[in-house]
């Protein structure tokens, strides 16, 4: 029996593990390898540079900008969708009329591609007839004209809003799932004991939602670290690299300037950031599991 099981394990796992190893694990490891070279993407040959690519990182002004932008991008992409998602989930948990339709509306953007979302928001920010400027013209100043995506001060934030619009539904869904596990008897007891609505939300509901918050926070960070398509279509990292994140920078160095060795060094940095987030995430999950069962 056991020998048969062993045979079946090998037979069933062979293909998935082979594909995963060749196309995910091996490239991951060789990314480290190429980060020590100056491969240009075309020639078969390359030279070993040792740690020179990593030394270059420290002097690369664009890399520094990318780190700053990534930090802003990740922080904002963490706070905005999490808070709006939580707010929507709390509203929708109250069995309001039409809750089903509202939910569909809020998570509809999830099924759109980042390219289409970017395209939609390019229209909103369009200086002459976009929704945003039309509104400002009507409400404040009829001569208002501001190219949101073409100004270094606003480009990154403009994309962050578009990104949050798409991601809010995801955190709302996770919070809604978390809310179903809070027994309504508990809330009733709180009310009988005289807790106000705010007290119930701040002191009972939000603390009990900690497991969902851990998931939402980790997922938002990971997703925003991956975020590339929407920046590519809306700003291309510009103007003047003001919306150039690490993922964008890595692409530009590797596939625009064909510095694939240097691009690999940037991807190693990306990998280490992701690894840190995942490590903390798994740890928190374990902790949450122990506390909340």
């Amino acid at each position, binding site marked *: 029996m056991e020998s048969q099981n062993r045979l079946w394990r090998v037979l069933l796992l062979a293909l998935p593990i082979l594909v995963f190893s060749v*196309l995910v694990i091996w*490239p991951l490891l060789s*990314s480290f390898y190429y980060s020590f070279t100056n491969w240009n993407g075309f020639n078969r040959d390359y030279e070993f540079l040792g740690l020179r690519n990593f030394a270059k990182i420290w002097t690369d002004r664009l890399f520094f900008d990318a780190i700053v932008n990534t930090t802003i991008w990740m922080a904002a992409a963490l706070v905005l969708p999490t808070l709006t998602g939580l707010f929507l989930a709390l*509203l929708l948990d109250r069995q309001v*009329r039409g809750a089903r339709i509202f939910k569909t509306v809020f998570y509809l953007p999830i099924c759109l591609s980042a390219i289409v979302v970017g395209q939609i928001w390019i229209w909103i920010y369009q200086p002459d007839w976009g929704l945003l400027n039309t509104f400002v013209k009507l409400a404040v100043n009829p001569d208002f004209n501001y190219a949101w995506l073409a100004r270094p001060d606003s480009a990154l934030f403009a994309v962050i809003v578009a990104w949050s*619009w798409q991601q809010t539904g995801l955190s709302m869904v996770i919070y809604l*799932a978390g809310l179903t596990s809070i027994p309504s008897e508990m809330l009733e007891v709180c009310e009988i004991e005289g807790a106000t609505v705010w007290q119930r939300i701040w002191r009972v509901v939000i603390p009990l939602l900690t497991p969902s918050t851990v998931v939402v926070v980790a997922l938002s960070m990971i997703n925003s670290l991956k975020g590339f398509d929407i920046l590519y279509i809306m700003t291309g990292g510009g103007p003047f690299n003001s919306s150039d994140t690490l993922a964008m920078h890595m692409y530009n160095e590797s596939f625009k300037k064909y510095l694939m060795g240097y691009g690999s060094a940037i991807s190693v940095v990306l990998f280490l950031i992701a690894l840190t987030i995942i490590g903390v995430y798994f740890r928190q999950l374990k902790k949450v599991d122990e506390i909340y069962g």
Partner: protein
Amino acid sequence: MADVAASVQDRFNPWPATVFVALCILATLFLAPTAGVLLSSVKTTRAIALGDLWSVPDRIYLENYAEVLSNPAVHRYFLNTLLVTVPATFASIALGVLAGHVFAKLPFRGSNILFLIVVSGMFFPPQVILVPLFRLFNGLGLIDTLWPIILVHTALGIPICTLLMRNFFAAVPNALREAALIEGANEWQVLTRVALPLSLPALAVLATLQFTWIWNDFLWPLIFTQSDDKRTIMIGIVNLRGQYTVAWGVQGALSLVASLPTLVIFLFFQRYFIKGMTMGAIKG
């Protein structure tokens, strides 16, 4: 029972009218971007340029859709996207089923670690494997074909498919498997005749998720293809921006047409979609 439910609702929601109005306002704000594209797609370029984008048209102008649907490049983009999405969705689910079954029903020493390694694959930014994969497929002469996109999506789908299938298979009672084994079935028959027929909901969840993700993908076709007749629809949107620079209505129509398959899937299989999103997120 009815009035108990009503009283719970009252306790839960002290201001149903306020909440309802707040939700209506938020929903309008949320829909505005999509509504704008829909409106622009049924207007003439001239009407949009005159600043008339946000009014409801008195006549629906369908020329933009006709332009998009009669463009042979768009046909090619759609065909390519289908040729990538369908096989990659199918293959990644098949591989996830195989691995998920082993992790759920045939655990071995170290299988938990292996499972964790596979699953963590879904958390890493794809940029991390970009350069080596480009070199690999360049060396194989497969750049500018659809093969690398199919293969990479198959591989990148393994983590989520394995995770969901393992969790689903783990919930199938062991007694079913043992009964089948006693009756002389082998492991393959247990998987295909016993476990799989029970797991149609999980397969539906994965099919909707994988189809949507692969259809919407932009990065891999951007890296692996160069010529216009190998591009997928999301690249096509970007490419055609040049051709339809100020034809905003045509661009809007194109965006909507390109999103139609995933929109339809989402609206019809919303339940599965949401389930997959939450399951993948929480059990991860």
